[in-house]
Protein backbone atom coordinates (compact mmCIF):
# COMPACT_ATOMS: atom_id res chain seq x y z
CA UNK A 1 0.00 0.00 0.00
CA UNK A 2 1.38 3.34 -0.98
CA UNK A 3 2.02 5.60 1.97
CA UNK A 4 0.05 8.81 1.56
CA UNK A 5 1.01 10.04 4.99
CA UNK A 6 3.68 12.64 5.45
CA UNK A 7 7.00 11.24 6.55
CA UNK A 8 6.48 12.55 10.08
CA UNK A 9 3.18 10.76 10.48
CA UNK A 10 4.60 7.61 8.93
CA UNK A 11 7.42 7.69 11.43
CA UNK A 12 4.98 8.07 14.30
CA UNK A 13 2.87 5.26 12.93
CA UNK A 14 5.89 2.96 12.81
CA UNK A 15 6.88 3.92 16.33
CA UNK A 16 3.34 3.28 17.52
CA UNK A 17 3.26 -0.08 15.78
CA UNK A 18 6.49 -1.09 17.38
CA UNK A 19 5.25 0.14 20.72
CA UNK A 20 2.05 -1.77 20.16
CA UNK A 21 3.92 -4.99 19.56
CA UNK A 22 5.70 -4.80 22.87
CA UNK A 23 2.50 -4.52 24.93
CA UNK A 24 -0.68 -6.55 25.02
CA UNK A 25 -2.73 -6.14 21.88
CA UNK A 26 -5.94 -4.42 23.07
CA UNK A 27 -7.91 -6.72 20.78
CA UNK A 28 -6.70 -9.62 22.93
CA UNK A 29 -4.06 -12.26 22.64
CA UNK A 30 -5.07 -15.58 23.84
CA UNK A 31 -2.31 -17.82 24.90
CA UNK A 32 -4.68 -20.75 24.61
CA UNK A 33 -4.85 -20.21 20.92
CA UNK A 34 -7.93 -18.11 20.60
CA UNK A 35 -7.57 -16.22 17.37
CA UNK A 36 -5.79 -12.96 17.49
CA UNK A 37 -7.54 -10.26 15.67
CA UNK A 38 -5.93 -10.05 12.31
CA UNK A 39 -5.07 -6.36 12.10
CA UNK A 40 -4.46 -6.61 8.41
CA UNK A 41 -8.11 -7.34 7.86
CA UNK A 42 -9.00 -3.96 9.24
CA UNK A 43 -7.56 -1.39 6.88
CA UNK A 44 -7.33 2.08 8.34
CA UNK A 45 -8.07 0.76 11.80
CA UNK A 46 -5.74 3.25 13.40
CA UNK A 47 -2.09 3.82 14.01
CA UNK A 48 -1.74 1.05 16.55
CA UNK A 49 -3.52 -1.74 14.75
CA UNK A 50 -3.50 -0.71 11.14
CA UNK A 51 -1.59 -2.40 8.35
CA UNK A 52 2.16 -1.91 8.13
CA UNK A 53 2.96 1.27 6.27
CA UNK A 54 5.51 0.69 3.59
CA UNK A 55 8.34 3.18 3.15
CA UNK A 56 9.77 3.27 -0.32
CA UNK A 57 13.08 5.14 -0.29
CA UNK A 58 13.44 4.95 -4.04
CA UNK A 59 10.56 7.38 -4.48
CA UNK A 60 11.13 11.14 -4.32
CA UNK A 61 10.23 12.70 -1.04
CA UNK A 62 10.60 9.44 0.85
CA UNK A 63 13.38 10.57 3.11
CA UNK A 64 13.69 14.30 3.08
CA UNK A 65 10.26 15.35 1.96
CA UNK A 66 11.85 17.05 -1.00
CA UNK A 67 10.52 16.34 -4.48
CA UNK A 68 12.11 17.99 -7.50
CA UNK A 69 8.83 17.72 -9.34
CA UNK A 70 7.17 20.13 -6.93
CA UNK A 71 6.94 23.79 -7.90
CA UNK A 72 7.60 24.82 -4.30
CA UNK A 73 9.98 23.52 -1.72
CA UNK A 74 13.69 23.04 -1.39
CA UNK A 75 14.29 21.69 -4.88
CA UNK A 76 12.07 24.09 -6.81
CA UNK A 77 14.91 26.61 -7.10
CA UNK A 78 16.88 25.51 -10.15
CA UNK A 79 18.90 28.51 -11.32
CA UNK A 80 22.15 30.04 -10.17
CA UNK A 81 23.01 33.50 -11.52
CA UNK A 82 26.41 35.08 -12.12
CA UNK A 83 28.15 38.42 -12.39
CA UNK A 84 29.83 39.32 -15.70
CA UNK A 85 32.75 37.01 -16.56
CA UNK A 86 32.28 35.09 -13.29
CA UNK A 87 31.61 31.40 -12.83
CA UNK A 88 31.86 30.81 -9.11
CA UNK A 89 28.71 30.03 -7.13
CA UNK A 90 27.92 33.12 -5.10
CA UNK A 91 27.16 32.72 -1.40
CA UNK A 92 23.49 33.48 -1.89
CA UNK A 93 23.12 30.29 -3.93
CA UNK A 94 24.96 27.92 -1.62
CA UNK A 95 21.87 26.70 0.18
CA UNK A 96 20.22 26.01 -3.18
CA UNK A 97 23.17 23.87 -4.22
CA UNK A 98 23.24 22.17 -0.82
CA UNK A 99 19.58 21.20 -1.12
CA UNK A 100 20.18 19.55 -4.49
CA UNK A 101 23.34 17.88 -3.23
CA UNK A 102 21.42 16.43 -0.28
CA UNK A 103 18.77 15.07 -2.61
CA UNK A 104 21.35 13.50 -4.88
CA UNK A 105 23.19 11.98 -1.93
CA UNK A 106 20.01 10.46 -0.58
CA UNK A 107 18.68 9.32 -3.94
CA UNK A 108 21.63 7.57 -5.55
CA UNK A 109 19.72 6.69 -8.69
CA UNK A 110 18.70 10.28 -9.36
CA UNK A 111 20.44 12.07 -12.22
CA UNK A 112 20.59 15.69 -13.23
CA UNK A 113 21.74 17.81 -16.16
CA UNK A 114 23.28 21.19 -15.42
CA UNK A 115 23.13 23.65 -18.35
CA UNK A 116 25.47 26.65 -18.16
CA UNK A 117 24.51 29.85 -19.99
CA UNK A 118 25.99 33.26 -20.82
CA UNK A 119 24.69 36.61 -21.97
CA UNK A 120 24.74 37.33 -25.70
CA UNK A 121 27.92 39.36 -25.96
CA UNK A 122 30.89 37.94 -27.85
CA UNK A 123 31.72 34.82 -29.79
CA UNK A 124 29.09 32.07 -29.65
CA UNK A 125 31.66 29.30 -29.31
CA UNK A 126 33.68 31.08 -26.65
CA UNK A 127 30.38 31.52 -24.81
CA UNK A 128 29.81 27.77 -25.01
CA UNK A 129 33.11 27.50 -23.14
CA UNK A 130 32.09 30.10 -20.55
CA UNK A 131 28.75 28.40 -19.97
CA UNK A 132 30.63 25.13 -19.50
CA UNK A 133 32.79 26.75 -16.82
CA UNK A 134 29.64 27.73 -14.98
CA UNK A 135 27.95 24.33 -15.11
CA UNK A 136 31.26 22.63 -14.20
CA UNK A 137 31.47 24.88 -11.13
CA UNK A 138 28.05 23.83 -9.92
CA UNK A 139 28.86 20.17 -10.54
CA UNK A 140 32.10 20.47 -8.62
CA UNK A 141 30.32 21.92 -5.62
CA UNK A 142 27.65 19.20 -5.71
CA UNK A 143 30.31 16.49 -5.79
CA UNK A 144 32.17 18.11 -2.90
CA UNK A 145 28.89 18.01 -1.00
CA UNK A 146 28.55 14.28 -1.58
CA UNK A 147 26.76 13.80 -4.87
CA UNK A 148 28.40 11.27 -7.17
CA UNK A 149 30.09 12.31 -10.39
CA UNK A 150 28.02 9.91 -12.49
CA UNK A 151 24.78 11.47 -11.26
CA UNK A 152 25.60 14.78 -12.92
CA UNK A 153 26.25 15.81 -16.53
CA UNK A 154 27.39 19.40 -16.96
CA UNK A 155 26.89 20.98 -20.38
CA UNK A 156 26.69 24.43 -21.92
CA UNK A 157 24.10 26.23 -24.00
CA UNK A 158 26.36 29.24 -24.46
CA UNK A 159 24.28 32.31 -25.33
CA UNK A 160 21.75 30.31 -27.34
CA UNK A 161 18.86 29.93 -24.87
CA UNK A 162 18.44 33.22 -23.04
CA UNK A 163 15.89 33.56 -20.32
CA UNK A 164 15.35 37.25 -21.14
CA UNK A 165 15.34 38.69 -24.65
CA UNK A 166 16.55 42.26 -24.11
CA UNK A 167 19.92 43.78 -24.97
CA UNK A 168 20.80 45.49 -21.71
CA UNK A 169 22.22 44.53 -18.36
CA UNK A 170 18.79 43.79 -16.96
CA UNK A 171 18.35 41.03 -19.54
CA UNK A 172 21.99 39.96 -19.57
CA UNK A 173 22.05 39.40 -15.82
CA UNK A 174 19.12 36.97 -16.14
CA UNK A 175 20.92 35.06 -18.87
CA UNK A 176 24.21 34.48 -17.05
CA UNK A 177 23.04 31.38 -15.23
CA UNK A 178 23.25 27.65 -14.63
CA UNK A 179 20.02 25.65 -14.69
CA UNK A 180 19.53 22.28 -12.98
CA UNK A 181 17.27 19.79 -14.74
CA UNK A 182 16.10 16.41 -13.38
CA UNK A 183 15.37 13.28 -15.43
CA UNK A 184 12.18 13.72 -17.39
CA UNK A 185 12.95 17.38 -17.93
CA UNK A 186 15.56 16.76 -20.63
Amino acid sequence: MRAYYSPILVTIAIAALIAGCSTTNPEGTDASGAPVTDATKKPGAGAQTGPIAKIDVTKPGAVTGADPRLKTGALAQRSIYYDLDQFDVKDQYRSLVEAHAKYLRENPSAKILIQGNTDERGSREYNVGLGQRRSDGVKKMLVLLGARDNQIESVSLGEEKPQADGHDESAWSKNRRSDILYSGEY
Partner: protein
Amino acid sequence: MFAIGLALAASAARAQLQIEITGATEKRTPVAIAPFAGEAALGPTAISSIVRADLERSGLFRALELPPLNPTPTEASTVNYPEWRSRLADALVVGSVSSRPDGRYEARFRLHDVVKQTALGGIAYTMTKDQVRATAHRIADFVYEKLTGDKGVFSTRIAYVVKRGNRYELQIADADGEGAETALASFEPIISPAWSPDGRRLAYVSFENKKPVVYVHSLLDGKRNVAANFRGSNSAPAWSPDGKTLAVTLSREGGSQIFLLNPDGSNVKRITTSSAIDTEPRYSPDGKWLYFTSDRGGTPQIYRMPPTGGEPQRVTFEGSYNVSPRPSPDGKQLAYITRNSGKFQVALQDLENRQVQIITDSDRDESPSFAPNGRMILLATVIGGRGLLSAVSADGRFKQRLSAATGGDVREPAWGPFIE
Protein backbone atom coordinates in the same frame (compact mmCIF):
# COMPACT_ATOMS: atom_id res chain seq x y z
CA MET B 1 12.64 18.44 -29.39
CA PHE B 2 13.21 16.82 -32.72
CA ALA B 3 15.09 18.09 -35.67
CA ILE B 4 14.40 17.28 -39.27
CA GLY B 5 17.40 16.49 -41.43
CA LEU B 6 16.54 17.04 -45.05
CA ALA B 7 18.30 16.30 -48.27
CA LEU B 8 18.62 19.48 -50.25
CA ALA B 9 15.52 19.53 -52.37
CA ALA B 10 14.61 22.24 -54.81
CA SER B 11 12.45 24.55 -52.76
CA ALA B 12 11.21 28.12 -53.15
CA ALA B 13 12.56 29.76 -56.26
CA ARG B 14 12.36 33.24 -54.79
CA ALA B 15 15.35 34.80 -53.03
CA GLN B 16 15.56 33.93 -49.38
CA LEU B 17 18.22 36.56 -48.75
CA GLN B 18 17.92 40.15 -49.87
CA ILE B 19 21.10 42.01 -50.72
CA GLU B 20 21.65 45.72 -50.23
CA ILE B 21 24.92 47.33 -51.29
CA THR B 22 26.41 50.00 -49.06
CA GLY B 23 29.80 51.58 -49.51
CA ALA B 24 31.95 51.38 -52.63
CA THR B 25 35.55 50.79 -53.61
CA GLU B 26 37.40 53.73 -55.03
CA LYS B 27 38.07 52.32 -58.42
CA ARG B 28 35.39 50.29 -60.09
CA THR B 29 36.09 49.13 -63.62
CA PRO B 30 33.28 50.24 -65.93
CA VAL B 31 31.99 47.24 -67.85
CA ALA B 32 29.37 47.16 -70.58
CA ILE B 33 27.29 43.99 -70.45
CA ALA B 34 25.04 43.98 -73.45
CA PRO B 35 21.82 41.96 -73.42
CA PHE B 36 22.42 38.58 -75.01
CA ALA B 37 20.61 38.13 -78.28
CA GLY B 38 17.76 35.68 -77.80
CA GLU B 39 18.05 35.53 -74.00
CA ALA B 40 14.30 36.04 -73.57
CA ALA B 41 13.87 32.41 -74.62
CA LEU B 42 15.32 31.31 -71.28
CA GLY B 43 12.65 32.94 -69.18
CA PRO B 44 11.88 36.17 -67.35
CA THR B 45 15.27 36.66 -65.73
CA ALA B 46 17.80 37.68 -68.36
CA ILE B 47 21.10 35.84 -68.21
CA SER B 48 22.93 39.11 -68.90
CA SER B 49 21.26 40.79 -65.93
CA ILE B 50 22.49 38.06 -63.57
CA VAL B 51 26.03 38.56 -64.92
CA ARG B 52 25.63 42.29 -64.41
CA ALA B 53 24.41 41.87 -60.81
CA ASP B 54 27.25 39.45 -59.98
CA LEU B 55 29.94 41.81 -61.22
CA GLU B 56 28.39 44.80 -59.43
CA ARG B 57 28.14 42.83 -56.20
CA SER B 58 31.85 42.15 -56.23
CA GLY B 59 32.41 45.87 -55.68
CA LEU B 60 35.06 45.94 -58.40
CA PHE B 61 32.88 46.67 -61.41
CA ARG B 62 30.32 49.23 -62.43
CA ALA B 63 27.89 47.97 -65.02
CA LEU B 64 27.13 50.74 -67.50
CA GLU B 65 23.59 51.68 -68.42
CA LEU B 66 23.35 51.08 -72.12
CA PRO B 67 21.13 52.64 -74.75
CA PRO B 68 19.06 50.27 -76.89
CA LEU B 69 21.46 48.46 -79.21
CA ASN B 70 20.14 47.74 -82.67
CA PRO B 71 20.94 45.12 -83.65
CA THR B 72 21.78 43.36 -80.39
CA PRO B 73 25.46 42.40 -80.66
CA THR B 74 26.47 38.77 -80.19
CA GLU B 75 29.69 36.94 -79.49
CA ALA B 76 30.19 36.76 -83.23
CA SER B 77 29.84 40.50 -83.85
CA THR B 78 32.67 42.66 -84.99
CA VAL B 79 33.20 45.15 -82.18
CA ASN B 80 33.59 48.86 -82.82
CA TYR B 81 36.02 49.51 -79.99
CA PRO B 82 36.17 53.31 -80.30
CA GLU B 83 32.38 53.41 -80.10
CA TRP B 84 32.45 51.43 -76.86
CA ARG B 85 35.27 53.58 -75.57
CA SER B 86 33.11 56.62 -76.13
CA ARG B 87 30.50 54.96 -73.92
CA LEU B 88 33.27 54.90 -71.24
CA ALA B 89 33.50 51.12 -71.15
CA ASP B 90 36.81 49.49 -70.25
CA ALA B 91 35.42 46.05 -71.07
CA LEU B 92 32.49 44.63 -72.99
CA VAL B 93 30.53 41.38 -72.69
CA VAL B 94 28.38 40.28 -75.59
CA GLY B 95 26.57 37.02 -76.16
CA SER B 96 23.65 35.08 -77.53
CA VAL B 97 21.27 32.26 -76.65
CA SER B 98 19.94 29.81 -79.21
CA SER B 99 17.79 26.73 -78.93
CA ARG B 100 19.09 23.28 -79.85
CA PRO B 101 17.21 20.47 -81.55
CA ASP B 102 17.27 18.37 -78.36
CA GLY B 103 15.29 21.00 -76.46
CA ARG B 104 18.25 22.43 -74.60
CA TYR B 105 19.86 25.81 -75.24
CA GLU B 106 23.25 27.09 -76.14
CA ALA B 107 24.56 30.22 -74.44
CA ARG B 108 27.67 31.82 -75.86
CA PHE B 109 29.55 34.92 -74.84
CA ARG B 110 32.72 36.81 -75.58
CA LEU B 111 34.65 39.26 -73.40
CA HIS B 112 36.42 42.21 -75.01
CA ASP B 113 39.08 44.49 -73.59
CA VAL B 114 37.88 47.79 -75.03
CA VAL B 115 41.01 49.68 -74.03
CA LYS B 116 43.40 47.21 -75.62
CA GLN B 117 40.93 46.62 -78.42
CA THR B 118 41.16 42.86 -78.25
CA ALA B 119 38.96 39.88 -77.42
CA LEU B 120 39.91 38.13 -74.19
CA GLY B 121 38.04 34.91 -74.79
CA GLY B 122 34.62 33.34 -74.59
CA ILE B 123 32.80 30.08 -73.90
CA ALA B 124 29.77 28.23 -75.25
CA TYR B 125 27.53 26.42 -72.75
CA THR B 126 24.90 23.79 -73.40
CA MET B 127 22.22 24.32 -70.80
CA THR B 128 18.61 23.91 -69.75
CA LYS B 129 16.32 26.69 -68.55
CA ASP B 130 16.84 25.84 -64.90
CA GLN B 131 20.56 26.35 -65.35
CA VAL B 132 20.24 30.04 -66.24
CA ARG B 133 21.61 31.25 -62.93
CA ALA B 134 24.42 28.71 -62.77
CA THR B 135 25.50 29.55 -66.33
CA ALA B 136 25.37 33.29 -65.68
CA HIS B 137 27.55 32.80 -62.60
CA ARG B 138 30.14 30.92 -64.66
CA ILE B 139 30.21 33.75 -67.18
CA ALA B 140 30.67 36.28 -64.39
CA ASP B 141 33.47 34.13 -62.94
CA PHE B 142 35.23 34.12 -66.31
CA VAL B 143 34.95 37.89 -66.72
CA TYR B 144 36.08 38.49 -63.15
CA GLU B 145 39.11 36.26 -63.51
CA LYS B 146 40.18 37.69 -66.85
CA LEU B 147 39.92 41.28 -65.61
CA THR B 148 41.26 40.93 -62.05
CA GLY B 149 43.51 37.88 -62.12
CA ASP B 150 41.58 36.34 -59.19
CA LYS B 151 39.11 33.47 -59.37
CA GLY B 152 35.49 34.61 -59.15
CA VAL B 153 33.24 33.29 -56.38
CA PHE B 154 29.92 33.75 -58.14
CA SER B 155 29.40 29.99 -58.48
CA THR B 156 30.03 29.29 -54.81
CA ARG B 157 27.46 28.77 -52.05
CA ILE B 158 27.01 30.04 -48.53
CA ALA B 159 25.56 28.33 -45.47
CA TYR B 160 23.91 30.22 -42.62
CA VAL B 161 21.29 29.82 -39.89
CA VAL B 162 17.94 31.62 -39.89
CA LYS B 163 15.97 31.97 -36.66
CA ARG B 164 12.28 32.81 -36.89
CA GLY B 165 10.50 32.67 -33.56
CA ASN B 166 11.40 29.34 -32.01
CA ARG B 167 12.36 27.73 -35.32
CA TYR B 168 15.92 27.45 -36.58
CA GLU B 169 16.93 26.50 -40.10
CA LEU B 170 20.36 25.74 -41.47
CA GLN B 171 20.16 26.94 -45.06
CA ILE B 172 22.43 26.85 -48.08
CA ALA B 173 22.08 29.44 -50.84
CA ASP B 174 24.01 30.66 -53.85
CA ALA B 175 26.54 33.37 -53.06
CA ASP B 176 23.98 35.93 -54.28
CA GLY B 177 21.39 34.69 -51.80
CA GLU B 178 19.23 32.96 -54.39
CA GLY B 179 18.02 29.39 -54.36
CA ALA B 180 18.13 28.83 -50.61
CA GLU B 181 17.50 25.28 -49.48
CA THR B 182 17.07 23.99 -45.94
CA ALA B 183 19.45 21.30 -44.73
CA LEU B 184 18.17 21.14 -41.15
CA ALA B 185 15.05 22.47 -39.43
CA SER B 186 14.88 22.40 -35.64
CA PHE B 187 13.19 23.89 -32.60
CA GLU B 188 16.57 24.18 -30.92
CA PRO B 189 19.58 26.29 -31.91
CA ILE B 190 22.09 25.38 -34.60
CA ILE B 191 25.54 27.01 -34.67
CA SER B 192 28.97 26.73 -36.27
CA PRO B 193 28.26 25.30 -39.74
CA ALA B 194 31.54 24.23 -41.38
CA TRP B 195 31.93 23.16 -45.01
CA SER B 196 34.05 20.11 -45.80
CA PRO B 197 36.81 21.07 -48.27
CA ASP B 198 35.02 19.23 -51.11
CA GLY B 199 31.78 21.08 -50.41
CA ARG B 200 29.79 17.87 -50.00
CA ARG B 201 29.30 17.85 -46.25
CA LEU B 202 28.53 20.31 -43.49
CA ALA B 203 29.60 19.84 -39.92
CA TYR B 204 27.57 21.82 -37.38
CA VAL B 205 26.53 21.98 -33.75
CA SER B 206 22.91 21.24 -32.86
CA PHE B 207 21.26 21.73 -29.47
CA GLU B 208 18.34 19.41 -30.24
CA ASN B 209 19.49 17.06 -27.44
CA LYS B 210 19.46 19.89 -24.86
CA LYS B 211 23.26 20.03 -25.08
CA PRO B 212 25.65 20.80 -27.91
CA VAL B 213 26.40 17.85 -30.21
CA VAL B 214 28.53 17.89 -33.40
CA TYR B 215 26.96 16.37 -36.52
CA VAL B 216 28.35 15.72 -40.01
CA HIS B 217 25.63 16.12 -42.60
CA SER B 218 25.87 14.90 -46.18
CA LEU B 219 24.29 17.47 -48.48
CA LEU B 220 23.51 15.11 -51.33
CA ASP B 221 21.34 12.65 -49.42
CA GLY B 222 20.54 14.48 -46.18
CA LYS B 223 22.04 11.68 -44.11
CA ARG B 224 23.96 12.72 -41.06
CA ASN B 225 26.00 11.07 -38.36
CA VAL B 226 26.93 12.18 -34.89
CA ALA B 227 30.59 13.13 -34.93
CA ALA B 228 30.81 13.97 -31.24
CA ASN B 229 28.28 13.44 -28.45
CA PHE B 230 30.50 12.78 -25.50
CA ARG B 231 29.62 13.56 -21.93
CA GLY B 232 29.45 17.32 -21.59
CA SER B 233 29.58 19.78 -24.49
CA ASN B 234 30.74 19.08 -28.04
CA SER B 235 31.21 22.04 -30.40
CA ALA B 236 33.31 24.18 -32.77
CA PRO B 237 33.96 21.70 -35.61
CA ALA B 238 36.67 22.57 -38.16
CA TRP B 239 37.81 20.48 -41.15
CA SER B 240 41.42 19.72 -41.95
CA PRO B 241 42.39 20.75 -45.52
CA ASP B 242 42.33 17.11 -46.67
CA GLY B 243 38.83 16.62 -45.28
CA LYS B 244 39.87 13.59 -43.21
CA THR B 245 39.95 15.12 -39.74
CA LEU B 246 37.69 17.32 -37.66
CA ALA B 247 39.05 19.49 -34.90
CA VAL B 248 36.44 20.01 -32.19
CA THR B 249 36.08 21.41 -28.70
CA LEU B 250 35.01 18.85 -26.10
CA SER B 251 34.39 19.12 -22.37
CA ARG B 252 34.55 15.36 -21.80
CA GLU B 253 37.82 15.60 -19.93
CA GLY B 254 36.88 18.74 -18.07
CA GLY B 255 36.86 22.36 -19.17
CA SER B 256 36.85 23.04 -22.93
CA GLN B 257 39.74 21.52 -24.81
CA ILE B 258 40.55 20.84 -28.46
CA PHE B 259 40.49 17.31 -29.83
CA LEU B 260 40.93 15.79 -33.28
CA LEU B 261 38.70 13.00 -34.54
CA ASN B 262 37.52 11.36 -37.74
CA PRO B 263 34.29 12.74 -39.24
CA ASP B 264 32.60 9.47 -38.28
CA GLY B 265 33.45 10.16 -34.65
CA SER B 266 36.22 7.62 -34.27
CA ASN B 267 39.87 8.03 -33.29
CA VAL B 268 39.56 10.81 -30.73
CA LYS B 269 42.79 12.51 -29.73
CA ARG B 270 43.25 15.41 -27.36
CA ILE B 271 45.72 18.06 -28.53
CA THR B 272 45.47 21.01 -26.15
CA THR B 273 46.35 20.56 -22.52
CA SER B 274 45.43 23.61 -20.54
CA SER B 275 43.01 24.37 -17.76
CA ALA B 276 41.68 27.28 -19.79
CA ILE B 277 38.97 27.49 -22.44
CA ASP B 278 40.62 26.41 -25.71
CA THR B 279 38.13 26.56 -28.57
CA GLU B 280 37.33 27.72 -32.13
CA PRO B 281 40.05 25.65 -33.82
CA ARG B 282 40.77 26.50 -37.48
CA TYR B 283 43.34 24.90 -39.75
CA SER B 284 45.62 27.07 -41.87
CA PRO B 285 45.13 26.28 -45.60
CA ASP B 286 48.45 24.39 -45.76
CA GLY B 287 47.46 22.29 -42.76
CA LYS B 288 50.56 23.27 -40.79
CA TRP B 289 48.83 25.29 -38.10
CA LEU B 290 45.77 25.07 -35.97
CA TYR B 291 44.66 28.53 -34.91
CA PHE B 292 42.42 28.71 -31.87
CA THR B 293 40.94 30.94 -29.20
CA SER B 294 42.25 30.53 -25.66
CA ASP B 295 41.91 32.47 -22.43
CA ARG B 296 44.94 30.77 -20.88
CA GLY B 297 46.52 34.21 -20.55
CA GLY B 298 43.56 35.63 -18.66
CA THR B 299 41.34 36.95 -21.45
CA PRO B 300 40.52 35.38 -24.82
CA GLN B 301 43.30 35.72 -27.40
CA ILE B 302 44.25 33.83 -30.52
CA TYR B 303 47.02 31.25 -30.51
CA ARG B 304 48.30 28.71 -32.99
CA MET B 305 49.99 25.33 -32.69
CA PRO B 306 50.90 22.48 -35.02
CA PRO B 307 47.94 20.06 -35.25
CA THR B 308 50.31 17.27 -34.31
CA GLY B 309 50.91 18.91 -30.96
CA GLY B 310 53.38 21.35 -29.53
CA GLU B 311 53.64 24.56 -27.61
CA PRO B 312 51.06 27.13 -28.78
CA GLN B 313 52.28 30.54 -29.87
CA ARG B 314 50.23 33.62 -29.17
CA VAL B 315 49.14 35.52 -32.29
CA THR B 316 47.07 38.50 -31.07
CA PHE B 317 48.46 41.15 -28.76
CA GLU B 318 46.29 44.21 -29.23
CA GLY B 319 43.20 44.52 -27.08
CA SER B 320 41.82 42.26 -24.40
CA TYR B 321 39.31 40.22 -26.41
CA ASN B 322 40.30 38.55 -29.67
CA VAL B 323 38.32 35.51 -30.84
CA SER B 324 37.11 33.54 -33.87
CA PRO B 325 40.34 33.13 -35.88
CA ARG B 326 39.92 32.64 -39.65
CA PRO B 327 43.07 32.20 -41.75
CA SER B 328 42.74 33.65 -45.27
CA PRO B 329 42.73 31.20 -48.20
CA ASP B 330 46.26 32.24 -49.17
CA GLY B 331 47.43 31.78 -45.61
CA LYS B 332 48.89 35.27 -45.39
CA GLN B 333 46.28 36.96 -43.25
CA LEU B 334 44.13 36.20 -40.25
CA ALA B 335 40.63 37.61 -39.84
CA TYR B 336 39.11 37.57 -36.37
CA ILE B 337 36.71 39.39 -34.08
CA THR B 338 38.15 41.98 -31.75
CA ARG B 339 36.41 43.94 -29.03
CA ASN B 340 37.33 47.55 -29.66
CA SER B 341 36.00 50.08 -27.12
CA GLY B 342 33.18 47.69 -26.30
CA LYS B 343 32.27 47.04 -29.94
CA PHE B 344 32.81 43.68 -31.57
CA GLN B 345 34.41 44.29 -34.98
CA VAL B 346 36.34 42.41 -37.65
CA ALA B 347 40.12 42.73 -37.56
CA LEU B 348 42.57 41.60 -40.22
CA GLN B 349 46.16 40.81 -39.29
CA ASP B 350 48.98 40.41 -41.77
CA LEU B 351 50.68 37.26 -40.52
CA GLU B 352 54.04 38.35 -41.84
CA ASN B 353 54.41 41.87 -40.54
CA ARG B 354 51.82 41.52 -37.72
CA GLN B 355 50.01 44.71 -38.70
CA VAL B 356 46.37 44.82 -37.69
CA GLN B 357 43.58 46.69 -39.43
CA ILE B 358 40.01 46.87 -38.22
CA ILE B 359 37.81 46.62 -41.30
CA THR B 360 34.29 47.10 -39.95
CA ASP B 361 32.81 49.91 -37.95
CA SER B 362 29.72 48.11 -36.72
CA ASP B 363 28.96 46.93 -33.25
CA ARG B 364 28.09 43.27 -32.87
CA ASP B 365 30.06 41.45 -35.53
CA GLU B 366 30.51 37.68 -35.31
CA SER B 367 31.63 34.69 -37.24
CA PRO B 368 33.74 36.10 -40.11
CA SER B 369 34.14 33.82 -43.14
CA PHE B 370 36.46 34.36 -46.11
CA ALA B 371 35.26 33.87 -49.66
CA PRO B 372 37.45 31.17 -51.19
CA ASN B 373 39.27 33.78 -53.31
CA GLY B 374 40.12 35.75 -50.17
CA ARG B 375 38.64 38.97 -51.55
CA MET B 376 35.51 39.24 -49.42
CA ILE B 377 34.61 38.41 -45.86
CA LEU B 378 31.07 37.37 -44.92
CA LEU B 379 30.07 38.02 -41.31
CA ALA B 380 27.07 38.12 -39.03
CA THR B 381 26.04 41.39 -37.46
CA VAL B 382 23.04 43.10 -35.88
CA ILE B 383 21.59 46.25 -37.38
CA GLY B 384 18.48 47.87 -36.02
CA GLY B 385 17.97 44.94 -33.67
CA ARG B 386 17.88 42.48 -36.52
CA GLY B 387 20.41 39.76 -37.24
CA LEU B 388 21.74 39.88 -40.77
CA LEU B 389 24.84 39.06 -42.76
CA SER B 390 27.31 41.59 -44.07
CA ALA B 391 29.88 41.04 -46.81
CA VAL B 392 32.88 43.34 -46.75
CA SER B 393 35.80 43.54 -49.12
CA ALA B 394 39.12 42.59 -47.59
CA ASP B 395 40.11 46.26 -47.45
CA GLY B 396 36.90 47.18 -45.70
CA ARG B 397 35.69 49.60 -48.31
CA PHE B 398 32.93 47.71 -50.04
CA LYS B 399 30.00 46.41 -48.05
CA GLN B 400 26.76 44.62 -48.62
CA ARG B 401 24.04 43.47 -46.29
CA LEU B 402 22.18 40.21 -46.68
CA SER B 403 18.99 39.89 -44.69
CA ALA B 404 16.30 37.23 -44.55
CA ALA B 405 13.64 38.20 -47.06
CA THR B 406 10.84 36.62 -45.04
CA GLY B 407 11.81 37.97 -41.64
CA GLY B 408 13.87 36.45 -38.90
CA ASP B 409 17.47 36.75 -37.86
CA VAL B 410 20.33 35.47 -40.00
CA ARG B 411 23.55 34.39 -38.33
CA GLU B 412 26.49 31.95 -38.42
CA PRO B 413 27.55 32.35 -42.08
CA ALA B 414 30.04 30.00 -43.69
CA TRP B 415 31.26 30.60 -47.23
CA GLY B 416 31.55 27.35 -49.19
CA PRO B 417 34.58 26.25 -51.20
CA PHE B 418 35.21 26.44 -54.95
CA ILE B 419 33.49 23.51 -56.63
CA GLU B 420 35.54 22.17 -59.50
